């Protein structure tokens, strides 16, 4: 069942069209990959979904509700949380404070005790966060910071997580760990929309995917289909088809 659905979404920066009519959907319980080169419009797509960038036309629907252009701080309450590009942690605050702020949207509705329970759950998922609870977020390593960014987003108990290039800047080992966690989160019931430039790794854990080029979807399919696609192999997997 499709949980998130974009229909003909356009968006522009100072008159320059960055999204030229994007239509895509992400199914409940799945990992959907959104792939493409630098500047293709992947982050813009996520930011339109989250309300940080205004859609000029088109519709964003989540769980059957039209959420086009609602305020970013209200989107979280709908069960849709983004782990932004560059992580954007609250570096001067402690790891624990970052996590607690992750639950900010639910503070009025849930008791302290429940939040504490969620905190323990996230720490179980990411043991390194428990160890570093009282350290400043900006003292963590890159891999740990990405775990914190994901943990912070999980504190909002989202139905769907939007991840913007979680592996960027990480050593291969740390990147693999991040991809494994993403897979685990999906298996625990959080649907995922994953933006990546590491196409091979993303398609390894994804169910379906889209390829974005200069603001337009140019390819769509299951992960297997995309991995087998000549254009994908040539452009993103570094394989020269003729040699294969």
């Amino acid at each position, binding site marked *: 069942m499709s949980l998130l659905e974009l229909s003909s979404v356009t968006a522009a920066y100072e008159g320059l069209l960055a999204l030229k009519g994007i239509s895509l959907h992400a199914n409940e319980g799945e990992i959907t990959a959104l792939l493409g080169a630098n500047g293709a419009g992947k982050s813009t797509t996520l930011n339109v979904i989250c309300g940080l960038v205004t859609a000029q036309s088109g519709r964003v629907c989540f769980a059957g509700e039209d959420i086009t252009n609602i305020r970013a*701080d209200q989107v979280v309450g709908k069960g849709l949380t983004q782990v932004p590009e560059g992580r954007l942690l609250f570096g001067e605050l402690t790891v624990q404070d970052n996590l607690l702020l992750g639950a*900010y949207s639910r503070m009025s509705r849930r008791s302290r005790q429940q939040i504490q329970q969620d905190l323990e759950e996230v720490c179980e998922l990411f043991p390194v966060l428990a160890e570093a609870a009282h350290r400043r977020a900006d003292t963590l390593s890159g891999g740990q910071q990405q775990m914190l960014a994901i943990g912070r987003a999980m504190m909002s108990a989202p139905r769907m997580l939007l991840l913007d290039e979680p592996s960027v800047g990480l050593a291969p080992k740390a990147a693999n760990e991040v991809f494994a966690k993403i897979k685990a989160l999906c298996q625990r019931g959080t649907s995922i929309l994953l933006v990546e430039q590491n196409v091979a790794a993303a398609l390894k854990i994804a169910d379906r995917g889209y390829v974005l080029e200069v603001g337009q979807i140019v390819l769509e399919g299951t992960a297997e289909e995309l991995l087998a696609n000549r254009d994908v192999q040539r452009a993103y997997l570094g394989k020269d088809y003729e040699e294969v």
Partner: protein
Amino acid sequence: MSLTDQLVQYLVTGVSIGVVYGVVGLGLTIIYNATGIINFAQGEFVMLGGMGAVALVNVGLPLPVAVAVAVAVVTGVGLAVERLAIRPLPATSIMTLIIATIGVSLVLKGGAKLLWGREAVILPPFSGTQPVRIGTAGIDPQRLWVMAVAVLSVIGVQSFFRYTLTGKAMQACAINRAAAQLVGININRMVSLSFALSAVVAALAGVVLTPVTMMRYSQGTTFTLTGFLAAVVGGLGNSLGAVVGGIMLGLLESLAGGFIDPLTGGMVSSGYNKAIALAVALLILWLRPQGLLGRQKKEAL
């Protein structure tokens, strides 16, 4: 009066005026951190607190009630300023917003003049005029009030930021607006709250200071500028730094006023005390551009 007594007097005077500068700097810091704006109407909040309390006492309210009402009204003014002058403007142009606060300060100053005239007004001291003895020196008890209220304001604000989730959410806004929104923080509400909070501390300072120095419609500008200097010397964005900077400026001003004339054998008049405080402040900034407690900004990647 012995030299020690004199020294104690000047120290008390310096610290009690310095904490007021510090609290103005603190208020500026709160808004600056939440929005990036320097609020040039901050000193007017101090002035309105003092003059408002006087007006309320004059219409017959008991002093404690007048104080409470004045602080509440100035808080309302702070909220209104944010709502009417700041929020309608695009948040992207900090310079426009700062100019808007200058406009607000002129409006508030003009309003106070229309309402209460040009004369300086005074509030009765909170606990009499009987000097409090420290050793052989006698201290004006109202100055102790000023210091106590300032200390409580600082502790209150620090605790708010350190121990409450709302305080942390406000810091989160300061660190990264987009990230704050992505966890569900309503930026407008935080900005509103920052104006309210800084109006409260400013108004409180104005109210306790008025029995010592009197208050006039035009005094806000001095508070703003000295408070800004305090915040910059302390390290812009650092709330404790603002207070430290304020106390330092107050002390310099008071000690220079007391001793520069005799020390230089009359060569430099005590009237230059503010200029001397300013010169020292500039010297500090020249040696340490990030301010006393400021951290050097890390190079963005």
